């Protein structure tokens, strides 16, 4: 039987990401990054002589639309495999469908833990990082670097928050750290209440595992209230550090401040400069706009790399099954992320490693070591 999406000269890949609306910043440029990587591969001759053909759909970060996009790609466009998803809750909605139809789905930057655990044969993700790992690594860093015995932990009340908190709890137990947790809604306007409660717990460090806006509000509030313990911001909130500095009201708020990162280098650092250069070359118009490329852009590269590698490994006559087998054995360093991409027989989350950077408003200093979570999936 002929595999869908395959011709002697092309291979069709279905991509989906939020290309519009509120959550566009999470996926638009990530998809662009993957696309430009495929373009590069095509220019270099493709994969076993086949050019990659991308069909891109807008998933609006919303479950109904994402499912529509996936069904369109699979049934209408007959793609060979899927490469998409930037929003975890939405991507989970497609899980059953993808598994039932045995279509390989390689996520873009969604953490998508809900679709990765328990592992299936068809879904791979967490190229940025798994949320379980985010939470655990934060605790790990706080315990190791500051010898924290009690940490304050702010996260969101959404799926992300539920996952990273579970990771954090696992590590807190392992490191004998006390957790004081406040879960807030991402739309929060006044962080006085959660901050006061966390401060009242008298923590050794404040861990902020939220998006950029609540994070900035929290840091600012901490500064206003004269909080002087270390503040550590997870990767979820690091979108734009110079902007963060302005948003918290200047460098004074960042005297004792650390950020988590999952890239191989500081943003704009030499190791990953090539990604930014490539972006500028591929999308000169976009690059000229303010705030572009968007912060999460590089995360698209390891995702696309994995697909390319798996396709190459699947040989000149790829089938979905062969590609899935190849995906499961991937183990390579993308050069973009802090840790290698590693999948395994029951491992579907690509990255678990994070680095930490001290940031004082202007200078970024890489902290030694790589931190990860000790959380394990208990099927």
């Amino acid at each position, binding site marked *: 039987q002929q595999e869908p999406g395959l011709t002697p000269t092309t291979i069709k890949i279905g991509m989906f990401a939020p290309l519009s609306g509120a959550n566009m910043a999470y996926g638009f440029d990530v998809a662009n990054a993957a696309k430009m990587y495929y373009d590069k591969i095509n220019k270099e001759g493709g994969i076993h002589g086949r050019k990659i053909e991308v069909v891109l759909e807008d998933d609006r970060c919303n*479950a109904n639309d994402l499912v529509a996009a996936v069904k369109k790609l699979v049934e209408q466009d007959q793609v060979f495999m899927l490469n998409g998803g930037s929003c975890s809750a939405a991507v989970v909605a497609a899980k059953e469908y993808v598994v039932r139809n045995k279509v390989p789905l390689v996520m873009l930057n969604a953490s998508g833990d809900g679709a990765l655990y328990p592992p299936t044969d068809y879904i791979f993700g967490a190229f940025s990082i798994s949320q379980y790992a985010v939470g655990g690594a934060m605790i790990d860093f706080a315990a190791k670097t500051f010898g924290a015995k009690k940490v304050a932990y702010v996260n969101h009340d959404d*799926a992300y928050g*539920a996952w990273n908190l579970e990771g954090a709890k696992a590590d807190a137990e392992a490191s004998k750290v006390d957790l004081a947790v406040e879960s807030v809604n991402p739309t929060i306007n006044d962080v006085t209440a959660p901050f006061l409660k966390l401060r009242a717990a008298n923590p050794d460090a404040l861990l902020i595992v939220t998006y950029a806006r609540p994070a900035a509000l929290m840091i600012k509030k901490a500064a206003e209230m004269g909080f002087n313990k270390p503040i550590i911001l997870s990767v979820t909130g690091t979108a734009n550090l110079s902007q963060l500095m302005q948003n918290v009201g200047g460098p004074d708020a960042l005297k004792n401040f650390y950020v988590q990162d999952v890239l191989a280098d500081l943003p704009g650092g030499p190791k990953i400069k090539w990604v930014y250069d490539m972006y500028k070359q591929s999308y000169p118009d976009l690059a000229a706009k303010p705030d572009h490329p968007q912060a999460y852009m590089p995360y698209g590269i390891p995702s696309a790399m994995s697909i390319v590698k798996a396709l190459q490994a699947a040989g000149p006559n790829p089938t979905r099954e062969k590609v899935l087998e190849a995906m499961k054995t991937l183990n390579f360093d993308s050069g973009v992320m802090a840790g290698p991409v590693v999948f395994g027989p029951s491992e579907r989350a690509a990255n678990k490693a994070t680095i930490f950077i001290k940031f004082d408003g202007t200078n970024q200093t890489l902290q030694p070591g790589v931190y990860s979570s000790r959380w394990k999936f208990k099927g």
Partner: protein
Amino acid sequence: MRFVALTVAAAILIALPLVTTGYVVYLANLLLTFTVLCLGMHIVIGETGQFSLAHAAFYGIGIYAAGIAGTSFGTPFPVSILIGGLAAAAIGFVIGMVALRMRDIYLALATFAFGEAMQWVFLNWNAVTGGPNGLRIAPARLFGLELVTDKDAYPFVVATAVAMLVLTVIVARARLGRSFRAVRESEIAAQAMGVPVQRTKVVAFGISAFFAGIAGGMFTLFSTYIHPDSLGFQTTILVLTMVVVGGLGSIGGAVGGAIAFGLISELLRQAPSFQEIAYGAILILFMMYAPKGLFAFLADRFRGARHA
């Protein structure tokens, strides 16, 4: 004329799964679900002139009730759907009773608050709704029959939608429908004619919640997952928009609005970068130049063309 339109609609509905892909059938399922939501909205706002801004919440109650019944207790799906509808109606009645004392806009605002609170409950009641992780919904079942694909579910979705449409027509034509409209036009006069105004409002509210709950049940026929994110004010507003754009006060408007707007929205997905602007502009232009709804607009054009 009407007969022709109905025949064409029936033909399209029957032919659809035979000639298209699962993707199109999925869209059709979703649109039909929204059609039922719109019918419920029509009853409360179009017929009775009351705002219900908690529609998404009742929809959600329907989804969770039907989904949990089917998934955890294995009830056959017609029963699950009914459970969804009844659960929503029951809560709708209770809310209606509480809101009884309020008049005019306050009633609407109270329902708005209820809707927002309900979404929060969906998000935080982990034991029942799965909270932020969402809820997996098992394929619908009936005597060993299992609805796995969109095409499997389609006939039942269509049947439910048609049944609800017929029910709407019956209600609208009946004495109950007349008392709805009487309340809409003048509460005082309605009262003087012997229409129990407050009770009528609560009944309208309850029926509309029932419709939303049934729509929730329909959703569980072809979906495998629900997350509270989809059950917010945005969804209520989407339904309201559909009803108004289709033509407030007419059943055809509610149905047409749901279908037309669902299609517009899906088409706009293909043009992401100007999507919001285009969506907003379409709403504005519709309100400026076709305020009586899509159908009145088309009918006017049609008539105009014939006269010209």
